[in-house]
């Protein structure tokens, strides 16, 4: 006969396990949101159909797959709870997905990941620092997101979230309205530190869903 404490510990471990799994899924989803915004991928639809096509090719599919697997795992765990298994799976699945997406999005647009990301860049973040440096701001060959640090005769200079400086050259109309401190998304081939932009979009205030990130980048850029 197993002692009562065995069952109590088992129940506690189950509750702890499901809570940790829940928080981890929320963390992964929020990281995906953060990664999309910091790399500028989230703004690709501004470029129309072409942007949407690039968006699908640039999504962090590995992380998305991990999030899906974790959500299924969470559902399997949750099916052991009586008020959940007594209802159709589709109900609990919808509730879990909704909670994960809402919490993940809110955490993703908060300054939580930005702080960790900039901490990682400055080497203050042990263990997961390399994860943020490598995965936090993925770089794509032809998509460049950053803050305009200065204007030049034929374009402007941007600083990316990774702290790199690129000179953007363009004949595009989009370049005319760009000024210092603007958040921009540039599509174009990069050779060394020069980007030959084929299109430039300004991420205006009303489009910027991620004010904390923009504010942090600006502070970082102008307080040096």
């Amino acid at each position, binding site marked *: 006969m197993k002692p009562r404490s065995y069952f109590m510990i088992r129940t506690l471990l189950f509750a702890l396990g499901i809570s940790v799994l829940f928080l981890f899924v929320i963390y992964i989803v929020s990281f995906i949101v953060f990664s999309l915004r910091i790399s500028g991928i989230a703004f690709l639809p501004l470029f129309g159909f072409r942007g949407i096509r690039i968006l699908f090719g640039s999504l962090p599919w590995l992380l998305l797959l991990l999030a899906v697997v974790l959500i299924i795992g969470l559902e399997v765990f949750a099916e052991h709870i009586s008020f959940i*298994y007594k*209802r159709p799976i589709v109900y609990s699945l919808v509730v879990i997905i909704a909670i994960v997406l809402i919490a993940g999005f809110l955490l993703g647009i908060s300054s939580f990941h930005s702080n960790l990301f900039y901490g990682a860049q400055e080497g203050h973040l042990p263990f997961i620092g390399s994860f943020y440096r490598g995965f936090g701001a993925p770089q794509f060959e032809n998509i460049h997101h950053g803050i305009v640090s200065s204007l030049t005769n034929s374009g402007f200079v941007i600083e990316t979230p990774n702290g790199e400086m690129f000179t953007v050259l363009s004949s595009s109309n989009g370049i005319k309205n760009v000024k210092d401190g603007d958040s921009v998304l540039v599509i174009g081939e990069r050779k060394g530190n020069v980007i030959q932009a084929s299109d430039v979009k300004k991420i205006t205030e009303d489009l910027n869903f991620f004010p904390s990130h923009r504010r942090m980048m600006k502070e970082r850029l102008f307080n040096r």
Partner: protein
Amino acid sequence: MSDMDDFEKKDEEIVSLVQSGKIELFGIVIDRYEKKMKRYASKVLNNHDDIQDVVQEIFTKAYINIKSVDTKRKFSSWLYRIAHNEIVNVFKKNKKRGFSPFFNLDVLFPQQGNGNDNNINKQIEQKEMQQMIEVCFDQLEEKYREPIALYYLEEFSYGEIADIMQIPISTVGVRIKRGKEAMKSIFKKQGYDHR
């Protein structure tokens, strides 16, 4: 030793005493449920050896885990849940069917109007169903056998069956309804008149 009063106690009272150390009273639990467990297992499983093994395993697991029983809740539901899990294990062992709820549409999606067993039909149909179960239960699709047996033979409610089988209440309703229709059809084919 158990005295005569113990035999008149409710299941939950006996379990409570077993939990507090009077382990010899577990014999009363076995006396009360051995036949029921055999009947339940024999309705769902066909192999005699499997039935014997399952019943033995049910009481072994019940004894080992007796301290996890919440005596404020119905003990029989807890015991039948062990029985259900053991039957599932036998099916898995024999690879007769997959038990993952993710692949059952009636578990995955909500069903309308089948989650209510609180009607007079149950009483009216009880005898008729018991008669049909005796005649054609072994021809019924496996996934309908357990809920039908639990509902019409063991007389559990939909909510209790949902707890035992760990499936949605609406799914219990759907399976009982479909199982009943299937049984009527089998019954008719065999030349009986169920009306």
